[in-house]
C-alpha cells in the first residue's frame, strides 16, 4: 500500500494488480448498476404496482398490498384479451416460420456473392424505414378502396376476397378492418427477425452431413426431415422468440389496422392513459412476461440459445 502511494505513476495499476478482485468489481460495476437499477429496477417497480389496486370511487391508486388486481385479470373480458393476443402471436409466429424457412434456405445455401448481399439487403431494408410509415402504408394497401381490392376486381376474383372477408371472426368489412389485416401486417413487420436467425442456423449445417446422408441412400425428403430440420430448428426457435414476444407486446398495429378489439398492448395503453388504472395495466404487463418465461424454458430445452 505504501509503495503504491509513493510512486504515483504505477500506483493505480499496482493497486489493482494486488487486488484483482477490486479490478473485476470496478469493471463490472457500471454495467451491473445499469442492469440492476435501470433495467431490473423498472421491472420491479412494475411488479410492485401490480400488487396495488384502484379505488373505483375516487379513481386513485391505493398503495396497499392486494391480489384483487390480479383477480380482475381473470374476468371473462380480460381473459378474452389475453387469449386473443396469445393466439395472434402463435399464428403470426407459425406463419413467419413457414414463410421465412424457404427464403433463409435459399439465402444460406444457394445465393452466392452479389446475390447473397442482395438477399441480406432485401431482408434488412424494411427495418431501416420507420415502423409507423410501414404500418400506415399497409393501411392504405389493405383499405376497402386500396390496391388489393382494386386488383381483385380487375382480375375478376372480387368474389374470392368477399368470401374471405365473410368468414366469421377473422373477416370484416374490409381487409384493414379485420383480423386478417392485423395478421398480415404483423407477419410483414416481424418477418426479418425470423429470417435472420434461421439463415444463421442453416449456414451452420455442415455440407458434408447432407452429402453423407445422400451417400447413405436417404431421399432428399428424408435428408430434410432428419438432418437439416433438426439442425436448423434452434434457429427457428430463436426467431420465434422474437416474433412471438414482439407480437405479444405490440400496441400500435392493432390500433391502426384491425377491428378495434383490444390486444394486451392496446389494453395496457388504454388502462394507463385513459383509465389511469396503473395497477391493472401493470398486472396485464406481467402476463406476457409469464408466457415468455414458459416459452423460453421450452426453447432452452430445445437448444435455441446455442444458435444465438
Amino acid at each position, binding site marked *: 500500500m505504501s509503495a503504491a502511494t509513493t510512486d504515483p505513476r504505477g500506483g493505480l495499476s499496482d493497486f489493482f494488480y494486488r487486488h484483482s478482485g477490486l479490478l473485476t468489481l470496478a469493471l463490472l460495476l457500471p454495467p451491473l448498476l445499469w442492469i440492476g437499477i435501470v433495467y431490473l429496477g423498472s421491472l420491479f417497480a412494475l411488479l410492485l404496482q401490480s400488487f396495488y389496486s384502484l379505488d373505483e370511487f375516487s379513481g386513485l391508486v391505493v*398503495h396497499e398490498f392486494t391480489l384483487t388486481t390480479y383477480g380482475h385479470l381473470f374476468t371473462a373480458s380480460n381473459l378474452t384479451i389475453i387469449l386473443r393476443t396469445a393466439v395472434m402471436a402463435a399464428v403470426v409466429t407459425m406463419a413467419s416460420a413457414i414463410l421465412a424457412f424457404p427464403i433463409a434456405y435459399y439465402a444460406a445455401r444457394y445465393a452466392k456473392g452479389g446475390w447473397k448481399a442482395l438477399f441480406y439487403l432485401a431482408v434488412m431494408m424494411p427495418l431501416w424505414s420507420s415502423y409507423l410509415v410501414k404500418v400506415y402504408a399497409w393501411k392504405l394497401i389493405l383499405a376497402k378502396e386500396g390496391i388489393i381490392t382494386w386488383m381483385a376486381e380487375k382480375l375478376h376474383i372480387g368474389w374470392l376476397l368477399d368470401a374471405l372477408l365473410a368468414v366469421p371472426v377473422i373477416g370484416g368489412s374490409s381487409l384493414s378492418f379485420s383480423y386478417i389485416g392485423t395478421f398480415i401486417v404483423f407477419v410483414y413487420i416481424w418477418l426479418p427477425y425470423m429470417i435472420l436467425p434461421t439463415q444463421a442456423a442453416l449456414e451452420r449445417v455442415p455440407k458434408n452431413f447432407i452429402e453423407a446422408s445422400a451417400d447413405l441412400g436417404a431421399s432428399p425428403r428424408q435428408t430434410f426431415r432428419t438432418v437439416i430440420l433438426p439442425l436448423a430448428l434452434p434457429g427457428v426457435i430463436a426467431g420465434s422468440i422474437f416474433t412471438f414476444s414482439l407480437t405479444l407486446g405490440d400496441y400500435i398495429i392493432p390500433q391502426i389496422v384491425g377491428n*378495434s378489439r383490444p390486444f394486451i398492448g392496446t389494453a395496457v395503453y388504454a388502462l394507463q392513459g385513459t383509465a389511469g388504472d396503473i395497477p391493472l395495466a401493470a398486472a396485464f404487463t406481467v402476463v406476457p412476461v409469464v408466457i415468455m418465461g414458459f416459452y423460453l424454458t421450452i426453447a432452452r430445452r430445445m437448444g435455441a440459445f446455442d444458435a444465438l
Partner: protein
Amino acid sequence: MTFMKTAIASLAALAAVAGIAMAQEARKEIGPGEGQVDIVAWPGYIERGETDKNYDWVTAFEKETGCKVNVKTAATSDEMVTLMNQGGFDLVTASGDASLRLVAGKKVQPINISLIKDWGTLDDRLKEAPWHTVDGVHYGVPYQWGPNVLAYNTKVFKDAPKSWSVVFEEQTLPDGKSNKGRVQAFDGPIYVADGALYLMKTKPELGIKNPYELNQAQFDAVIALLKNQRQLVGRYWHDAMVQIDDFKNEGVVASGSWPFQVNLLEADKQPISSTIPAEGATGWADTTMMHAEAPHPNCAYLWLNHSLNPKLQGDLAAWFGSVPSVPAACKGNELLTDAGCATNGFENFDKIWFWRTPTAKCGVEGGCVPYSQWDKAYREVMSQ
C-alpha cells in the same frame, strides 16, 4: 420491497401535506411577467404560424409581454389530467370531462375574474358554466366550444340524416345497402354519453334526464345499445387523421365526428358534410385553467387575458372548427368569415350536452355509475 413501499408512502404523505398547506386563494393582482408560460393544450389550439402563417396568435403575445409560450399537446382529456397531476405546467385547456376532475383533485386554482379585463365580453351562456364554476368560484376562463357532429357521406345521404339511429341501429341506408361495417364510433368511454343521449329521446320510458347521470338500469340499457352497435362498427376511431382516411378509403359513410375532420374533408373536396340530428349532440367546452402550483402565475394571467382577444378567438375558431367563447369574434374575422360561427354551431348551444365527468354522486335516485365503470364497460363493448 418494504423500502420502496415506505418511500412511496412517505412521498404520498409529503404530497398530501403540500396540498393542504397550499391556500386555495385567488390572486389579487398581476405582477411583472416571469419570462415564460407553459401550457398543456389540444393539438391546434395554440398556433404560432408554423403550420400556416395566417394562423398565429402567439408571436404577438410574446413580443408584447416578454412571456415565451411553451406548448405541450395532449391527445385525450385523461392525458391532460395525468400531465397536470405530474405538475410543472401553468395552464391547461381542459374539456368538461377533465375540468371537474382537476378541481376535485385540487390541481387547479381559483381565478380572480376581476383580473380578466375582458370577462364581460364572454358569451353569457359560458360565464357561470358548471364545468368550471364550483360553489360560485371560477376555476378558469372559457376558451372555445363545439359539438360532436354526425358526419355523413352526401352521395349516400341526399338529405342530412335526421337521427343518430343511422350509427346505432342496423338499417338500410338511402343507397339501398345496410349500414353494417360502414359506420364508426369514438373509442373513448365518454362515447357512452352519445348512446345515452340517443336513448334519452328514443326510449323515454328509461327516464334518462342527463346523459352523464345514469343509474345502473339506464347504464345497462345504454351498454346493450352499444354492444349492438359493435356489430355495425368496422373500426372505432381514435385519431382524427385516421378517421379522415377511413372516410376517404374505407367506405365509412356515417360517424360521430368533430367539425375539424369535416372541415378538412370538405376542403379536400370529399363528399362529406355534417349535421346535428334531432336528438341533439354531445360536445366539448374547453376552459383554460391554471395549475395550483403554477410556476409562472403572472405570465399565466397575461395569457388568460390574451386568450379572450376577439382576433385570437375568431382565428382559432376558423382553424379548429370550433365556436368562440367571445361572441364579438364572430363578426369581421377574415379567416372565420361572418358565416363561420353559425357553420360551427353557434346557435346549437342549447342542443348540446357538454362533456362532463360522470361521478357516483348525482341527482339521480340511487346514485350514478361512475367514470371508472364507464371505462370498464366500454372496453368490454369494444372487445366483443
